[in-house]
């Protein structure tokens, strides 16, 4: 029924002038279109952030390289970090949440469609503002200057005296704008999940994807806001002559660090929890088994959210806290490992004894599991404060958190792309190119980030623009850069796959993976109204019930 309606719609769209189509996209309040806008916007910035990373890696390929100046190098790592966290990871995850949460809970849209559009455009504006700094932020080094104070803008580096001009202001206001956008989206996701579920969709029946995004949004409310507050303080300091972080007037530089990391550490979980959500949807479908330990998964996620709020100072062991604070943050940080370990065992339990299909989404999820485990283990190493005193500010830390962000978050995201692309566009991503993408990226990733641990252990500090030869770092850095190029090639394969499959991909149909959640019950792409009549569900796997009326899940719940 809905597919008829859809064919009529596509015909209408095909006859439209492009201005009209553009106008529709710009003014849209549809959660699916906004989701796609979020994702496209994030992919655009992924490419930019990737170029910045590549520039840094080329500079560090050889000792005494002069590919870029130290000043440009500073801007590159600042912009790379800021872009990847705020304008790639956050929007892309919000994009998936936007697109999928209403479909999964049987709703026709988000609770506040216009707030949704507003939040997206705020985030988009933030990104543009950040990059406008290349043109408009005339600063210390003359006209045209991007922020160069690191993605955390430690005080007093970001104060007027040490960061004249406007580059730090662009950074602050861009993050403030995107922060408000994130809060709007988080409010929207929570209200949608609490108030818009279809009949029968009790909280205990909700897909884990929705559950985990609910927890993530709750964390956004509590984690992004401290950053916004600190940004307001920084603006007061920079524009009104305030003294919050002005050490000469009695202000404290460590207070900024605390405020930043009260945001910064939960932020890691804000990013990884939606990736847990992807894994929790993809792994069961390709193992042909329901998720193992559903209530425990929910409980562990909530537990991670709680504990992760009290671990932030493990980023600051080297500032000289007292031994009680060091012990506290060491213990809480190690405690996060427990619920995370529970989740990893649950995914393994889901795969155990399953009829595993090694399709591309599943491959990426397995990569995610393996790499996230290692990232967690180096995290436990760094959680131990005496060990951290040795390695804080070294390439070991860089390797650790890139293992989390690339090996964990990005791998899960690629899995999500291969899994939901058919739903979003109506065509399958090419499986051959997908496997090529996976293996190339896997090799490039391990070449880069496995080896990056070693110069860190050998004492290579992060954020240096060059280094002396003969310290045992040369070959490793060269190989790390080669790995970065392999990742670039793999990403190009992925982008090519996205484009080619959009036009030439096999038709997906409603349910290409024989999955169980509600989004697969509607046509691909779904009609504007999602569900012609509101569905009613009576178990965690409504489509299983539909496909197996003789043995529905509802009988066992």
């Amino acid at each position, binding site marked *: *029924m*809905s597919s008829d309606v859809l064919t009529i719609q596509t015909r209408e769209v095909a006859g439209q002038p492009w201005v009209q189509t553009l106008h529709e996209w710009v003014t849209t309040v549809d959660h699916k279109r906004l989701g796609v806008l979020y994702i496209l916007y994030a992919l655009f910035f992924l490419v930019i952030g990737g170029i910045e990373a590549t520039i840094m890696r080329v500079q560090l390929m050889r000792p005494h390289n002069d590919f870029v100046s130290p000043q440009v190098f500073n801007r590159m790592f600042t912009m790379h970090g800021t872009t990847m966290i705020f304008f790639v990871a956050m929007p892309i995850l919000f994009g998936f949440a936007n697109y999928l949460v209403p479909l999964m809970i049987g709703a026709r849209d988000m*609770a*506040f469609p216009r707030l949704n559009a507003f939040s997206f455009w705020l985030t988009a504006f933030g990104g543009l503002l950040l990059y406008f700094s290349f043109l408009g932020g005339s600063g210390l080094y003359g006209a045209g200057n991007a922020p160069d104070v690191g993605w955390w803008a430690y005080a007093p580096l970001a104060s007027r005296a040490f960061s004249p001009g406007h580059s730090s202001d662009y950074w602050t206001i861009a993050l403030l704008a995107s922060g408000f956008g994130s*809060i709007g989206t*988080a*409010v*929207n996701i*929570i*209200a*949608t999940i*609490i*108030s*818009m*579920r279809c*009949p*029968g969709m009790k909280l205990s029946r909700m897909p884990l994807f929705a559950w985990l995004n609910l927890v993530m*949004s*709750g964390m956004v*409310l*509590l984690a*992004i*806001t*401290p950053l*916004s*507050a*600190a940004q*307001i*303080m920084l603006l*007061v*300091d920079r524009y*009104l*002559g*305030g*003294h*919050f972080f002005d050490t000469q*007037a*009695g*202000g*404290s530089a460590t*207070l900024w660090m605390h*405020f930043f990391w*009260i945001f910064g550490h939960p932020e890691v979980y804000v990013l990884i929890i939606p990736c847990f959500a992807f894994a929790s949807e993809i792994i069961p479908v390709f193992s042909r088994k329901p998720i193992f330990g559903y209530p425990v998964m929910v409980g562990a996620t909530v537990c991670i959210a709680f504990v992760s709020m009290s671990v932030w100072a493990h980023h600051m062991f080297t500032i000289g806290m007292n031994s009680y604070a060091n012990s506290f943050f060491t213990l809480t940080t190690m405690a996060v490992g427990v619920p995370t370990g529970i989740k990893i065992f649950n995914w393994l339990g889901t795969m155990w004894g399953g009829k595993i299909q090694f399709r591309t989404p599943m491959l990426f999820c397995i990569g995610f599991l393996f790499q996230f485990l290692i990232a967690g283990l180096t995290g436990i190493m760094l959680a131990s404060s005496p060990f951290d005193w040795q390695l804080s500010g070294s390439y070991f830390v860089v390797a650790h958190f890139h293992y989390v962000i690339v090996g964990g978050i990005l791998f899960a995201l690629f899995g999500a792309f291969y899994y939901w692309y058919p739903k979003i566009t109506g065509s399958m991503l090419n499986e051959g190119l997908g496997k090529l993408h996976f293996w190339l990226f896997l090799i490039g990733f391990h070449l880069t980030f496995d080896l990056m641990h070693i110069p860190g252990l050998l004492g290579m500090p992060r954020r240096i623009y060059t280094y002396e030869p003969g310290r045992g770092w040369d070959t490793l850095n060269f190989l790390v850069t080669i790995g970065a190029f392999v990742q670039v090639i793999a990403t190009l394969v992925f982008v090519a796959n996205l484009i080619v499959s959009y036009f030439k991909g096999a038709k997906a149909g409603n349910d290409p993976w024989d999955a169980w959640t*509600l989004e697969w*019950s*509607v046509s691909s792409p779904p009609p504007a109204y999602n*569900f*012609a*009549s509101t*569905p*009613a*569900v*009576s178990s965690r796997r*409504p*489509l299983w*019930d*539909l496909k197996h*009326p003789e043995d*529905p899940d*509802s009988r066992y719940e």
Partner: protein
Amino acid sequence: MSAITTPLQETAVTWKLPYRGKVAMVCLIIAESAIFTIFVVAYLFYVGKSNTGPTPREVLETPIFYTICLLSSSLTIHFAGKLLERGRRGVFLGLWLLTIVLGGLFLYGTGQEWHRLIYEHGLTISTNLFGTTYYSLVGLHAFHVTAGLILLSIVLLFGLAGHIGPEQSARVDVLSLYWHFVDAVWIVVFTVVYVLGR
């Protein structure tokens, strides 16, 4: 796609979920609380750390009257909402107006205090740490009062035009939830600035 209605035993059960406006406002309040917490922590952290005067003990006067105004506006808005639910529009509008007047009085009090501090004691946001933290914390709260007053006034205008009835009661309640939050924050700010901070 009405296909997913196979085992339909449950549709008979009434399916009632919380009102989305209220959920969203609660979320906003949680987020705002985090922002205020950071400012309060900064205030407490910097108590007594200013290098120069004036100090809070020297210049601050406890604004008891205006505090009573703001806190009692929570009562008036609460009863306004209750009366609207029962359809008594006239009394609702009266109490609503009273809420705005009380909130406005409070804002006037803040303005007067700032005027006194700036012109009599020479305390500005850039004078010392006390000035920086005081004006940002109290200013952040005053900003929220201002936003609340604008929203309340919009409702008042709609009410005077006769567009607010019992059917809008749930929406009006969302706004009063925000107003209660603004009042509750003042209790914290008051305690921190005028009691602990001195």
